[in-house]
């Protein structure tokens, strides 16, 4: 019982973080048709932003400012680095994204140095539920992740902008013919993705209160894996992939014999799923237009 409850909470929390990052990858892929490999580094920028804004001594304000900063950064990156390449070969866009990733990491090193910085956002402590000791920060992470996922699903389904996002991801030309401003939709997509990455940065700080320039690298790759497992381009797919990966990771780290191989297990799952279902769980087969 104890084990079940703690594994459930931990995997929903970790999986929730992965899902939030994976949503950024998958939405940008679906709508802008590019892999934004700098996405993981926004997590790191978000964590550093909290570190800086904590000087104001107000955790809530620091978090809000961090989200706002990452949102503006995401929009700026798209404007400056990606938009001029619209229509260029996918390889050029991919290399640019990798370049932006290194740029962000290097800038962070120049500004903050290579040693990690300690950031304590808030001490939540622990509580006992049904005799199981749980970190409150884990519960908060889980709750926020679930709310974010539900809110995003409703936003995409029910709002005019959300439907425009689906339309652009399905057929950019036809979407334009409906009067949809594709550039505006792409900007909104980057804003949402980057805000979610900033929140992920916050949750990493709640798990372990230190930030360095490579904080976003591994979560970025894991979340990208989650997005591909779920079917890249699919919003529910990213959520499913994130939660699945979080669950696998929590279970694997609990079993002493296989704990050291956790990462290997996760990436093996990716390979196996791609062999069986090349489009991921909820990905759709792309029909080529003639």
């Amino acid at each position, binding site marked *: 019982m104890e084990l079940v409850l703690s594994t459930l909470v931990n995997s929903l929390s970790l999986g929730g973080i992965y899902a939030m990052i994976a949503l950024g990858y998958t939405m940008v892929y679906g709508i802008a048709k590019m892999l934004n490999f700098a996405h993981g580094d926004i997590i790191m920028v978000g964590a550093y932003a909290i570190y800086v804004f904590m000087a104001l001594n107000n955790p809530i304000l620091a978090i809000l400012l961090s989200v706002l900063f990452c949102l503006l950064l995401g929009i700026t990156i798209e404007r400056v680095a990606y938009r001029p390449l619209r229509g260029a070969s996918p390889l050029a866009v991919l290399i640019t994204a990798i370049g932006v990733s290194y740029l962000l990491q290097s800038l962070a090193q120049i500004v903050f140095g290579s040693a990690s910085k300690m950031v304590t956002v808030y001490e939540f402590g622990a509580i006992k539920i049904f005799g199981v000791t749980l970190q409150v920060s884990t519960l908060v992470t889980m709750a926020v992740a679930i709310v974010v996922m539900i809110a995003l699903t409703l936003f995409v389904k029910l709002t005019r902008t959300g439907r425009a996002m689906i*339309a652009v991801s399905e057929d950019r*030309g*036809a979407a*334009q*013919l*409906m*009067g*949809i*401003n594709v550039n505006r939709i792409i900007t909104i997509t980057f804003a949402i993705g980057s805000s979610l990455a900033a929140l992920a940065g916050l949750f990493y700080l709640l798990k372990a209160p230190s930030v360095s320039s490579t904080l976003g690298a591994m979560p970025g790759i894991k979340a990208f894996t989650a997005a591909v497992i779920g079917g890249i381009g699919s919003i529910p797919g990213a959520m499913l992939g994130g939660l699945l990966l979080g669950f696998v990771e929590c279970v694997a780290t609990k079993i002493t014999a296989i704990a050291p191989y956790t990462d290997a297990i996760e990436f093996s799952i990716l390979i196996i799923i791609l062999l069986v279902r090349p489009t991921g769980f909820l990905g*759709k087969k792309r029909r080529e237009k003639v």
Partner: protein
Amino acid sequence: MALLEVKNLEVYYGVIRALKGISFEVNEGEIVTLIGANGAGKTTTMQSVVGLIPKRSGIVTFDGKDITHTPCHKIVHLGMTQVPEGRRIFQELTVYENLLMGAYSIKDSSGFKNDLEAVYTRFPRLAERKNQIAGTLSGGEQQMLAMGHAIMSHPKLLMLDEPSMGLSPLLVDQVFEIIKDINKDGTTILLVEQNAGKSLAISDRAYVLENGNIVLSGTGAELSASEMVREAYLGG
């Protein structure tokens, strides 16, 4: 004054000159058809006029405004709607959601219900299938949906690119009936068709496009009677 006026429109694909400076106009209330063989430049004309592909030179005026350099989504808001070749409805959305997207350019949603009812009345099949995923509709139903979601935006000018393509003869007749009907209700129509016979029959005027040039123009009846059109497009 013409609703749509195209002057010396030139379009290039790389080094290939796809449109070699064509001029034509569509007056309010008309049905105008561009006919021509595959590769003549019909779809290129449609897509460049609406701003989906860039124009090299020329001037396009719509409803008195110069729209030569206006981006596509803004042109749509001015009242020009296009049903592209191959229909391109949103396959993963339901019929209803597709119609909702059709009304995207209309910010005031108060008329939406009436417009929706009007479309359902015109296309009863769509009403029966409103909650069905659009990708599962038959070709004919998809064409009805494409035309339905185009009229949701109340266009001044409705542009239809090969609406009869891939449809059974019975459905082709139905599509042309509907086009005539939409026109009667006050919508100006620019049509691109390979089915020259049927489209000339409903057209006020028509242009013949060949290798990126307009080689002939006249009323629908004139062109139907023309020796050249009969030989090249009406099977002699």
